[in-house]
C-alpha cells in the first residue's frame, strides 16, 4: 500500500493536503476559541494573577 506513496509521482497534491489539514485544525480551534464564554475566558486568563 505504501509503495504508492514512495514511488508514484503524486507529491504535487501534498501542498493541498497540508493546507487542508492545517486549515481544518485552525478552523476547529478558532471556532472553539470564539465560542468560549467571556466570563470563562476572563476567569482563565486571571489564573496566574490569583495570588
Amino acid at each position, binding site marked *: 500500500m*505504501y509503495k*504508492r*506513496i514512495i514511488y508514484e509521482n503524486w507529491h504535487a497534491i501534498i501542498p493541498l493536503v497540508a493546507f487542508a489539514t492545517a486549515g481544518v*485544525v485552525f478552523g476547529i480551534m478558532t471556532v472553539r476559541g470564539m465560542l468560549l464564554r467571556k466570563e470563562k475566558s476572563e476567569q482563565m486568563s486571571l489564573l496566574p494573577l490569583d*495570588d
Partner: protein
Amino acid sequence: MTSTSATKVPIEFNDKVVRQFMLASIIFGVVAMLAGVLIALQLNFHQLNLAEFLTFGRLRPLHTNAAIFAFVGNMMFAGVYYSTQRLCKVRMGNDTLSAIHFWGWQLIIVAAAITLPLGFSRGKEYAELIWPINIAVAVIWVVFAINFFITLHKRNEPTLYVALWFYISTIITVAMLYIVNHLSIPTSLTHSYGIFAGVQDGLVQWWYGHNAVAFFLTTPILGIMYYFLPKAAERPVYSYRLSIVHFWSLVFLYIWAGPHHLLNTALPKWLQMLGMFFSLMLWAPSWGGMLNGLLTLRGAWDKLRTDPVIKFFIAAVTFYGMSTFEGPLLSIRAVNALSHYSDWTIGHVHSGALGWNGFMAAGLFYWLAPRLWNTKLYSVPMANFHFWIGTFGILLYVVAMWISGIMQGLMLNQVTADGLALKNTFLDTLQAIRPLMGLRVIGGAMFLVGWLVMCINLWKTIRSGKATNEVREVALLQRDSSQVMGLGETFFNDPLTYSIGGLLLVCGWLFLPPGADVASLICACIFAFMAVKRFQKAHQTWSFWYDKLLHNYLPFTLLTFVAVVIGGLIQLIPTITVNTAKNMEDRIQKLYEPLELAGRDIYVSEGCYNCHSQMIRTLVPDVMRYGEYSRLGESIYDHPYQWGSKRTGPDLAREGGARPNSWHYEHMMDPRSMSPQSNMPSYTHLKDKPFDQNALPKKIAVLTQLGVPYPVMDATSIKMKALEQGAAIAEDLKKANIVVRPDSEMVAIIAYLQKLGQFETPAIEETLTKKSGGGVPFPLTPVNPDKARSAMAKP
C-alpha cells in the same frame, strides 16, 4: 460542579527545587556559552584544538547538549516547578521525586560532560549521548512526569491554565521522541548501533531533532511565557481565546515539519513537500503566540523602560517571532538550497537559543531570585547592562551568520562565465567568511559577558536575602464525580469523532488505490458536511465537552498525545516499512569491510559529521562540485546515517578513491599541508593508537541482527580481514615514505574514507550506462576547482 470549599489551608510550596534548578541553569549556562565561544574560536584558530579530547568535533556536541539539556533544561524545570505549584495551588506531588529529578538530571549532565570529550558518541546531533545515559534520561524524565501528574491530580484549582497544557505536551512528546530516536542495540558498555539506518535514520533523527527544538526549547518556554509574562506585567494574557488556537495548532503542526532539515536530499520528495508546507504553516500559530505575548503588555508599555524583567521577556518574545519567521523561510526548498549546510542555519538557531531561550531565562531568573530569597534585586543598572550587551551580542552574531551563510552559499554556487566550471574552491569560500566567523566570536562573547554580569548580580541578590518557601492560604477543591471524564467520553464524542473520522478519510484519499481514493474523498466531504450540521444543532454540548476536558488532565494528556503522534506516524511508518534495502531499485551501498567499519566508528567518535556532510543534493552546484547526487540506497546500511547538517568542510559522499592514501594521511596529520588555510584540526593522535579489533565481531553481529547482510564470519576471520586490509594500506603508504602501524586508527579511518561512495550497480543501471555510454545524469563533465587538491599529494 467541581468547586472550591470555604475551608482554607496553608500550603508551603516546594521552592527549594526551583532554587536548585535555577542555580544549575545559571552555572551550566556559563559552561555552554564558554564552550560555544571556544569552538567558535577554534574555527578561526585551528591551534586551539589543544588535545585529542578538545577538538571541535568533540566539543561541539558538548556545547549543543549543554545549551539544550543543561542550560535550557534546568531553566525549564525551574519555571515548570514554580508555576505548576501556583497554578494548581498545591505543593509539588512528591518531594523525593523532585529531589531525584534534580540530582538525576545533574548526574546525567556530568556524565555527558565526561563522555562527549572522550569521544563516546552515537553520531547524531543532540542525540550523541551513549545508551546507558539515554536510559538514565528516560528514567529521570518519567520521574519528572510522575511528579508533575501527581501535582495535577492533587490540585486545588479545577481548571488547567494554558501554561499547563504546554507543559503536558512537552512531557509526553519529548518522551516519545527521545525513546524512538534512541532505540539502539548495544555492542559494549559505551557503544551501540541505532536500529534505524540511512534514510530511515535521517527521517527519525530530524523528526526528533526538529521537535527537540519544538517541544524542549519552545513549548515549555511558551508555558513559562503564559505564566510569568502576565505576572511581570501585572495584567492578564492579551487573549485567552487566542491561546487556545495557539496551543492546539502549534502542537499539531510542529511535529510534521522535521523533513525540512533534509530538503533537496535523497529523502523521498513527498516527505520533503510535507515538511516544507507544514513548516510554512507554522508561521500562523507561532506569530499568534508572539502577538499574544507582546499584546499582554497593552497599557503597560512604560514598564519596558524601567523593569528589566519586562525588557528581557519582550525582547525574548520578539526574538521568538523573528526566529519563527525565519524558520519557515529557510524551509522553502529554493531558499534551503542556498542556506542549508551554511552559517545561515547557525545564525537562525542562535537567534532562537540566545534571543528566545537565553533572554526568557534571564527574565525568569531576575523575576524569581528576589522572590525565592525574599529580597530585592541587587542592581537594576547591572541588569540593564546585561540586557543591552546581550542584545547587541545576539544581533552581531546573527547578522554575521546571515552574511556568512548567504555569501558562502552564493560563492559555492558561482560558475564561470561559460557556465561549465565552478568559480571558487571550497577553501576560497572559507577564507571569505573568516572575518564573519571572527565577528561571531565577539557577538557570542558579548552575550557571555552579559550572562556573567547577571551571575554577579544574582549572587549579590541571593547574599542579601534568605531562601524562603512561599506559604499561601488555599481553598481546598471539592471534587464532583459528574466532572470526571472517563475514557469512553474522552474518545467517543462528536467533536473527536468528526475530527478523527475526517482525518482518516483524507488519509484514505492519499493511501488507497485508484477508485477507492476518490470514494474516500467524497466520504470526507460528506462527513465534513455532517459535522457542520451536527455542530449547528449541538454546539453547546461540544463546548461543554471541551470545558470538561480542561478539568481532566488524563483525557487532556491522551488527546494531546493523539495530536502529536499523527504527524509522526504518517511520515515514519511508510518510510520504515518501504524504504529498506530489499525495495531499492537503484544503487545499493557496498558493505563495509571490518577495518572500514572500525574507521567509520572512529569518524563518528571524532564528530567529523559536525563539519562534513555525506549527501550530495539534487542540485546542479552540488553535483558539479562533488559528483553524482546521492541515491537513497547509497547509505541504506549506515548505522547511524551521516548525511550531516553543516559543511565547514566539503562533502565526503564520493571521497572514496578521489585521492591517494598518502594524501589522507598527510591531511589528517596536518590539514594545512594538503589544504592551505584549512581550519580542520590535526588528528595526529590517530597515528599511534590501535583500533579496537576485539570489538569488531560483536559490532558485525549487531549490524547483522539489524539487517545488514554480512556473510557468516567468525571472530578470527573478522580480525584477520581487518589486519590484512590494514597491512595493505600501510604497505601502500610506505611507497610515499610514510611508516604507520597497520592496526592504527589512522589506517582504519583512511580505509573508511576510501570506501565512501562505493555501491553495487543494479542490472538496470548497467544497461542504461552501456546504452548512453556514461550513466552520469549531468550532461557535461564539470570542471571542479577542488580537484586541484588531489594533485598536490602527487610527487
